[in-house]
């Protein structure tokens, strides 16, 4: 069975599960949760940078999905629909937590992340810096960046998931990458290229 056929089979299965879940079958909904749990938690984690918040917001996402399942139209992507709820849940959760995240934004000084030209970052330090830089982006830009870079969604899919025009997807993505390059600094990018060589 080729990958295209497998994808079609999965879509058919998912449509059937959605139909059953709409009729109140909790088991069918649980199967949908199993299918999308990882993706939803990943996306929320990329948005908030905290595993516990990601777990809680993901649960909230699926509860909201269950409550509003009747408004979901099978012609659209369930994953995109769930991601939109997930972003709302993540934003609400961040607001509740007053954006004070452990090991995240406090003591963040990204304007000059490099102490000197000779500085060399360990893998862990670099990861921390990148994570902090992502978290420092405006919510709207971060959402677009996460969907593109980590979920590898097309611009059209992002536009559908976030319910924004295609032009807005492009401008937010451009802005997010521009900010990241500024904040991470060229040296970090160059160092990375050197590491790869």
């Amino acid at each position, binding site marked *: 069975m080729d990958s295209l056929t497998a994808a079609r089979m999965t879509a058919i299965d998912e449509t059937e599960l959605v139909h059953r879940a709409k009729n*109140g079958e*909790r088991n069918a*909904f*649980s*199967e949908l*949760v*199993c299918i999308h*749990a*990882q993706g939803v*938690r990943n996306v929320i*984690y*990329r948005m908030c940078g905290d*595993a516990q918040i*990601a*777990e809680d917001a*993901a*649960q909230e996402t*699926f*509860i909201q999905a*269950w*409550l*509003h399942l*009747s*408004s*979901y*139209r099978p012609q*659209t992507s369930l994953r995109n*629909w769930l991601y*939109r*709820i997930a972003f*709302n849940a993540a934003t609400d959760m961040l607001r509740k937590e007053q954006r004070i995240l452990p090991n995240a934004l406090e003591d963040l000084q990204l304007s000059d992340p490099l102490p000197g030209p000779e500085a060399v970052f360990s*893998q862990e330090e*670099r*990861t921390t810096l*990148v*994570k902090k830089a*992502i978290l420092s982006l405006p919510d709207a830009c971060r959402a677009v*960046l996460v969907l*593109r*870079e*980590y979920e590898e969604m*097309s*611009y059209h899919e992002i536009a*559908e*998931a976030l*319910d924004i025009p295609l032009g807005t997807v*492009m401008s937010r*993505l*451009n802005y997010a*990458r521009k900010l*990241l*390059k500024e904040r*991470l600094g*060229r040296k*970090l*990018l*160059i160092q*990375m*290229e050197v590491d*790869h060589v």
Partner: protein
Amino acid sequence: MSNHVTEWLNAYFDGELTGKRLHQVEDHLAECEACQAELDSLQGLSELLQEVPVPEFTAAERFAAQVNLRIPHKRVVISRKRIFEVGWWMIPVGLLALWIFIGTAFALGDILAAAGNLGLLSGISEWLGSGPANAIYLSTTIGQMGLLSGNGLNWAEAAETFTRISLPQFILQVSIAVLYLCWIAIWWARHTHQGHGQLLEG
């Protein structure tokens, strides 16, 4: 600088460009070192972003079980939703019924008044009691005081009759029509919103 393709580099990097624009960017990149360097930096940034790992979450089955414990019973949701939907569709029906009732009431009033004027309802008019017949009309008072006479008094009486009888009826019917249009606008907005892929009231 104006020939640079910087604004299209992100879309090119993401494989979103097609046709003429794609060729334009490709041709430019073959000649321009600055744009090529910019493209390389996008590649470097993307690789850097991929270095950030995601933590190990609880197993999907266990997570689904946790969600299952928290989700409310569907029937409650359905019945509430159904009540809301029925209520929602009753709004235009109610407005239509109100409009018919008001229209009928005014028409009946006119018929009764006409019949009364013709003397057909002499017995009933007493039962109906006083009302418009005994109402004190300002134009009549003004006429009696001699402030207006002739055409002026006729105009005043016509204006007062319009203000007392036709205007309220007109305002009522326009209000009902406006409410109905508002309902259609809200229905359209909801329908369009759902068409975009929905969500989320919550």
